[in-house]
């Protein structure tokens, strides 16, 4: 997921630092349904926060043909989306397309080449979706990968069979550029059996050969031999692109296992609990007003009169505003999990969850009932044992985001360093607008500021913020129950700590404003900046003098 360090116009991105480590005992149904294993819920959450670059990296990790899949997938994810039980499924495919279009249009930097720290070389025959996916995975595992393609261009069926009005070629090229940028060598016009044979490849010293030639016509592969693997249409017959990509991942695993001398049988599938929601519970939440029905955003189309003149795409794609709104329809299924080894059954979550989701099991352990969880995050910040994992981008990576924001260059020598944690549901604005409005404040999006915990706030000061404010919805507008209450509660208790520490309460503030009140916030932020400026220099001095950041990181 590494991206080159070229700065984009976005707020500081953290794609380089976020491991997206997750417990993965619970899986949202959208992700469970995706043959390629794309982290659907998580990239939707990133879009909902305006973190498009991070979303793009996350998608491409499992779905390298993101532009294509954002247009022509058969959407098994949407068929399983729990939101369908409320109104309509989240428009996952269109959102994926929005991100890849955004990456293409804003020319997000290509990934850096991966250092080839492994001695083995891998040959892949066929530069279609399967072959290039396997190439990407193996390159990320630090192998030297060479792809041989019979035709003059890579892309396989996606290039050969899809009409221009479904998938513009430049976007397919962009997908492939992203893959090859990892340091993969591509030889086009090189057909197996016509310029080279498997035997020759082996003689040239390739440790393994992966055949992913597709099946545009019937053919029979020769007798399998050790170290030669066949995947995709060439072995199973024609399939959807997403299955071809899945086959590519599988092929890469087999090759890696083979090279390492392990069993080449694919590892047993991880039987995660799928967070399928309860229809009755969702209906009740709609009835109680906890979930507000909101129709799925329609895809804008060219009219027939415009489209007959050219082979341009019929579907125009979402605007940023529509994409943000659509992504914010996601229910965040299966985000919170109990870490059993840490849970001491204190029952705090059971008592505090606004939706009565955590429950005591017959074994007297505590369980978060995934079929009911709303992903509000209140339990996470209150758990005294830190035994609740929140596996969605937004909490699990908040500290790296804060650190990344503070590592960015000072905006000006005279302005204090201020972090603004804002609710994306409240702001209803993308990162560029936010940055434009608040150029001197390091603004970090969240899906509700009740996801911010005392420790996050302390950390922000510890790594160098002079002032921190939170901004989110007014009571009654919050997307969750009690979000305003908990955000205020945490700010208050952190203020007490700041006073004890000697930093002073005034360095932290919370604003609950009417929806999209950026104008109003502008005034308050100026006032806050003035206040902090009067308090500055921060008693914490220059954070670069601090030598204990690395030491503390492991425990956070």
């Amino acid at each position, binding site marked *: 997921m590494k991206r080159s360090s070229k700065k984009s116009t976005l707020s500081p991105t953290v794609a380089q630092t976020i491991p997206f480590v997750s417990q993965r005992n619970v899986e949202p149904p959208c992700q469970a349904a995706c043959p390629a294993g794309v982290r659907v819920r998580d990239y939707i959450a990133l879009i909902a926060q305006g973190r498009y670059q991070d979303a793009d990296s996350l998608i491409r990790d499992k779905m390298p043909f993101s532009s294509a899949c954002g247009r022509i997938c058969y959407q098994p994810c949407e068929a399983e989306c729990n939101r369908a039980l409320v109104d309509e499924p989240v428009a996952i495919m269109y959102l994926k397309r929005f991100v890849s279009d955004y990456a293409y249009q804003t020319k997000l930097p290509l990934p850096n080449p991966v250092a080839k720290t492994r001695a083995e070389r891998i040959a892949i025959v066929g530069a279609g979706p399967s072959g290039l996916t396997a190439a990407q995975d193996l390159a990320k595992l630090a192998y030297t990968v060479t792809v041989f393609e019979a035709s003059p261009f890579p892309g396989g069926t996606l290039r050969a069979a899809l009409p221009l009005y479904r998938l513009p070629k430049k976007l397919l090229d962009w997908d492939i550029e992203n893959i090859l940028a990892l340091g993969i060598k591509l030889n086009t016009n090189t057909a197996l059996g016509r310029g080279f044979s498997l035997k020759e490849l082996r003689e040239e010293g390739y440790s393994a050969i992966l055949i992913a030639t597709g099946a545009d016509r019937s053919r029979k592969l020769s007798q399998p031999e050790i170290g030669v693997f066949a995947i995709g249409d060439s072995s199973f017959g024609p399939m959807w692109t997403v299955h071809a990509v899945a086959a590519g991942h599988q092929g890469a695993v087999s090759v890696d296992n083979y090279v390492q001398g392990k069993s080449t049988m694919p590892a047993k599938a991880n039987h995660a609990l799928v967070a399928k929601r309860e229809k009755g519970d969702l209906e009740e939440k709609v009835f109680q007003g906890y979930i507000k029905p909101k129709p799925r955003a329609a895809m804008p189309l060219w009219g027939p009169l415009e489209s007959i003149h050219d082979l341009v795409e019929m579907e125009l794609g979402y605007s940023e505003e529509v994409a943000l709104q659509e992504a914010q329809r996601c229910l965040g299924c299966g985000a919170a999990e109990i870490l059993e080894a840490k849970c001491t059954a204190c029952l705090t979550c059971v008592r505090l969850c606004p939706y009565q989701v955590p429950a005591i099991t017959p074994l007297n352990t505590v369980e978060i009932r995934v079929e009911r969880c709303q992903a509000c995050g209140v339990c996470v910040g209150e758990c005294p044992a830190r035994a609740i994992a929140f596996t969605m981008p937004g909490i699990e990576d908040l500290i790296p985001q804060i650190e990344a924001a503070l590592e960015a260059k000072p905006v000006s020598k005279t302005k204090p360093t201020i972090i603004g944690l804002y609710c994306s549901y409240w702001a209803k604005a993308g990162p560029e607008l936010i940055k434009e409005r608040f150029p001197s404040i390091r603004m970090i999006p969240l899906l509700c500021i009740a996801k911010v915990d005392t420790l996050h706030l302390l*950390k922000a000061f510890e790594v160098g913020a002079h002032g921190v404010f939170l901004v989110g919805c007014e009571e009654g507008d919050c997307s969750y129950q009690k979000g305003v209450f908990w955000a205020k509660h945490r700010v208050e208790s952190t203020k007490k700590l700041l006073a*004890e520490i000697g*930093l002073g309460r005034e360095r932290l503030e919370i604003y609950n404003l009417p929806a999209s009140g950026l104008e109003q916030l502008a005034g308050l932020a100026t006032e806050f900046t003035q206040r902090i400026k009067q308090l500055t220099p921060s008693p914490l001095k220059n954070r670069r003098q601090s030598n*204990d950041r690395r030491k503390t990181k492991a425990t956070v």
Partner: protein
Amino acid sequence: MIVGKQKPLSEIREMIAEYQKVLILGCGTCVTICFAGGEREAAILASSLRMADKIDGKERVITEYTVKRQCEREFLEELDEKVKEVDAVVSLACGIGVQALAERFPTTPILPGLNTSFLGFPDEHGVWSETCSACGNCILDQTGGICPITRCTKGLLNGPCGGTNNGKCEVDPEKDCAWTLIYQRLEKQGKLDLMRQYYPPRNFQAVVRPGKIRME
């Protein structure tokens, strides 16, 4: 369970004043449950101390860690290397944990980061009440399951005293009169005659301090 309350930051800072490397050690059981010394509180304390140090220009290394229970020798084994690296440990366990640590690491000062307050249970989120004094001579069978030794401010065995006031205590009007509670409970159980029982002066030798129990 054991209920504790973290000491004020200033007091902890005084305790660690002379040390350069300090480990903040949380405990994963009772004090976690009462929000005084679990993993989260250990992290908050460590962060607070680091900042307070920085404000004072002190170069001190503060790390944090949490074990399952500080009052078990086996759970302390994993600390051997960690404790070697520091000058002192601030234990966020109850007094039992502090002493268990001090026994395992006799050359390292183990400093109490919280005050062990009492044995009790939560009335609601964030509120705990003392209910047992661990006196070693339980009479709850005769007092309707309400301990007068602990919950009567005066610890009276033959209550109520003359100071009961509409169910509240004369010493602290915020607190319920334990003997009124006992009366009401016994009434519900049809055992009011137990109120007439006279308790002779209590044998405080039932548990000789320090207590010791051997399982038979």
